[in-house]
Each structure stands twice: as structure tokens, then as C-alpha cells.
């Protein structure tokens, strides 16, 4: 089904340069003879200019953080699917039946706990996990630690080196005496990066690149000596 354009729409198409040669000639003849058409054409051109001149709006300062926070919430909610499934089952089972089964299980457990057992069966308590030390985000194929005297200068130098090698700084984190950069870099540039970091400070590398292809995730820690 072919749309038929009105004369005004043909003028809009004329501005765009999408009319056939024949149609274009017809329009140009008509424009020569009709002031009204010339005015309409001029108005259309100005309309397009006004549209093109609309100022862009800026994103709010908090925008990326808010988006990422919602994205993270979404991934955490996925982990709750098991709870939701259990909850569905819970609805199916009468609460009283569940309570009875639970109480019976607890009673049996308590009875067995107080029953004398051979030493070999009395196993040691499962190791109480020690408090995990506060760890930073685990990320990256390799980790490069750069010990420096001036963290701010070093930060700029490192980022310059990364940019010059075609790498991308995905994210930055600042701590009291350390800056962390999450970097994506071509595998072929990693050695060169290492060489460029050496003049900046004492460089130490950890990790294994033997299985990495293409792009490498590099976590660079710039640490104050």
C-alpha cells in the first residue's frame, strides 16, 4: 500500500532530497510560480532548523549510580528465586503439618544429641568460619600493584599510559592510601603497560594470562608507600 504525499509533504521530501528527478522538476516549476509554496517551503526549513536547534538535556549527577544500584538490586533479587519457590510450596502445605514435621525433626535431633556416641562418630564441630576480612571487589584476570610516593601524580600517569595503549578505564575506586582502576586492555598491550608503569613506581603483577584471549581485565592498584 503506497502512501500518497500531499503537496506539503512533497515539499518536506524535496528538502530531504528524496524525490525522483521528475517530481523534483515539477516542484521547482511550481515554486517559481507560487509565492505561497515558497513560503511553505521556507517555513518547513525553519521548522527543521528549530528541531535541530533543540538543546540537549543533561543527565542528573546521580544518574549512573542510581541505574547501577537498580541493576544490582535486580541481580540480587534473582537469588531470591529459591526462597520464592519455597514460599510457594509453603502455601501449598498446611502450616500446621509443616510445624508438626519441624517439631518432630527438632525433637529427634535433640534426642540424638544427648545419646552417647562413640568418639569416632562424634565429629568435631564444623569449623566456625572466621570473620572474613573486609575484601575489596574481586575482579580481573590480573592484578598490578604500583607502589608510589605521590598517589595523585601517579594516578594521572597511569591513566595516561592506559589511554595511550588503547585501554578503557571502566571504573575507579578511591581509598585512604590507595586508588584502584578497573581496566580493559588488549592482551597484546599488557607487557607494554607493565613497562610504562615501571617509571611510575615499584610494580608487582599477580595473575595468570595463559587462558585469556582478546581483552584482559586488569585491576591496577596505586598504593601510597
Amino acid at each position, binding site marked *: *500500500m503506497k*502512501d*500518497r*504525499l*500531499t503537496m*506539503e*509533504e*512533497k515539499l*518536506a*521530501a524535496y528538502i*530531504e532530497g*528524496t524525490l525522483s528527478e521528475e517530481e523534483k522538476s515539477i516542484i521547482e516549476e511550481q515554486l517559481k510560480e507560487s509565492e505561497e509554496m515558497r513560503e*511553505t517551503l521556507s*517555513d*518547513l526549513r*525553519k*521548522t*527543521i532548523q*528549530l*528541531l*535541530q*536547534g*533543540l*538543546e*540537549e*538535556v*543533561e*543527565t*542528573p549527577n546521580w*544518574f*549512573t549510580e*542510581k*541505574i*547501577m544500584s*537498580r*541493576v*544490582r538490586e*535486580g*541481580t540480587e533479587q534473582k537469588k531470591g528465586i529459591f526462597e520464592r519457590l519455597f514460599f510457594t510450596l509453603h502455601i501449598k502445605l498446611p502450616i500446621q503439618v509443616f510445624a508438626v514435621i519441624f517439631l518432630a525433626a527438632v525433637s529427634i535431633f535433640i534426642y540424638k544429641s544427648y545419646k552417647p556416641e562413640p568418639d569416632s562418630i562424634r565429629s568435631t564441630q564444623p569449623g566456625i568460619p572466621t570473620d572474613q576480612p573486609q575484601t575489596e571487589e574481586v*575482579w580481573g584476570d590480573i592484578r598490578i600493584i604500583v607502589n608510589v610516593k605521590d598517589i595523585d601524580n601517579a594516578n594521572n600517569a597511569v591513566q595516561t599510559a592506559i589511554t595511550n595503549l588503547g585501554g*578503557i578505564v*571502566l*571504573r575507579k575506586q578511591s581509598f585512604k592510601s590507595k586508588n584502584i582502576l*578497573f581496566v*580493559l586492555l588488549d592482551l597484546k598491550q599488557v607487557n607494554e603497560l607493565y613497562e610504562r608503569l615501571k617509571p611510575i613506581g615499584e610494580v608487582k603483577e599477580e595473575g595468570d594470562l595463559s587462558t585469556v584471549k*582478546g*581483552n584482559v*581485565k586488569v585491576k591496577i592498584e596505586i598504593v601510597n608507600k
Partner: protein
Amino acid sequence: MKEKDYITIDEDFRLISLCQKGDLVAFEELVRRHDKEMLNIAYRMIGNYEEACDVVQDGFVSAYKNIKSFKGMSKFSTWLYTIVINLSKKRLKQLKTQRFREPVSIDEPINTGGDQMIVDPPSSSPLPDEILEKENIQEKVRLCLDRLYNEFREVVVLRDVQGFSYEDISSILKIAEGTVKSRLFRGRVLLKNCLKRFMGVI
């Protein structure tokens, strides 16, 4: 393709493959690259900044949830903008019932010689003159854009405001290039008529 476009597309794909493995740091970079354009498209579609911000957030959350289904058959940006246009139209529909908004874009139907576009009847409540007097030209353009029928507004926004090619618009809106052009031309005429009515001389 410009060199800059080639590099940008290539880097997007690098990041997308990481995102598909659950890397949120890579996704954050994709957000930074595309959030402004997304917001401008949503804002020009919806006409309200706060609503546009909400829609863009929803758009990125949806994009991350579905990122594994992105197969690279189109540009990632095209895929993203399709999401935001669809969400914007959905939000507009919700807002229509909640607030005073003119659903009509034109005073007269388009005469296509038998292929009539279906339009709503004209509004009986014109915009107050005293408000219009205070608005600058940008606001008048925005108001007239807001009054366009969705199908015209989206092509006018993508082509004349955001500068997309016909090919990209066709991919984003999932319509033929010919349809893009005809809607664009009609949309421009309608907008021109609206501006003339409210401004006199453009």
C-alpha cells in the same frame, strides 16, 4: 562508517561480552556511554524530564536483564533505543490517563486520497495564550512536539532532533524506511502548522 563510529561499536561489543558473563563494571561503562542519548530521546518523546529519567532507568535495568539475548544482529545502541522508545510510549499511555494532556496532534486529518490516517478529534481547549507568551521558542517547539501523534513524534525526534539515519530509525522502530520517510514528512508538516498557529511567523 566514520572511524569514530567503528571504534565505538567495537568497544561496545567488547563490553557486551563481559556483561553477558555478569560483569557489572562493564555494564556501568555502557550506561555512561549511552545514558545521555537515551535520556534525550525519552525526554523528547514524553515531554517530562522526571518521567524520562525514570523510563531510562527502567530501560537500562531491562537491558541488563535481557543482555544475554542480545546477539549482535544490530548495533547495541539501536537495541537500547528501541527499548527506551517502547518504554516511553508505554509511559505516555499511563500518563495520558493521569494528567491533562492533549492527545491530538492535528486539527485536520491528513488527506492521503483514500488512505486516511486515523486521528483523534481536535481539542476544544487551546493552550493559554498567557503561558505561550512567556515561553521561549524552544518551549514552543517542545510544546508542538508534545502535541504530535506518537508515530510522527518518534520519527521527527529520531531524525531531526537526534540526527539518526533512516537505516537506524528503521531498525529502532522496526518499520520500513519508506514508512519512516512518509511519517517524517507528515510529522514535519504538522509541526510546522502547529508552530505557525502559535507563533504566527516561524
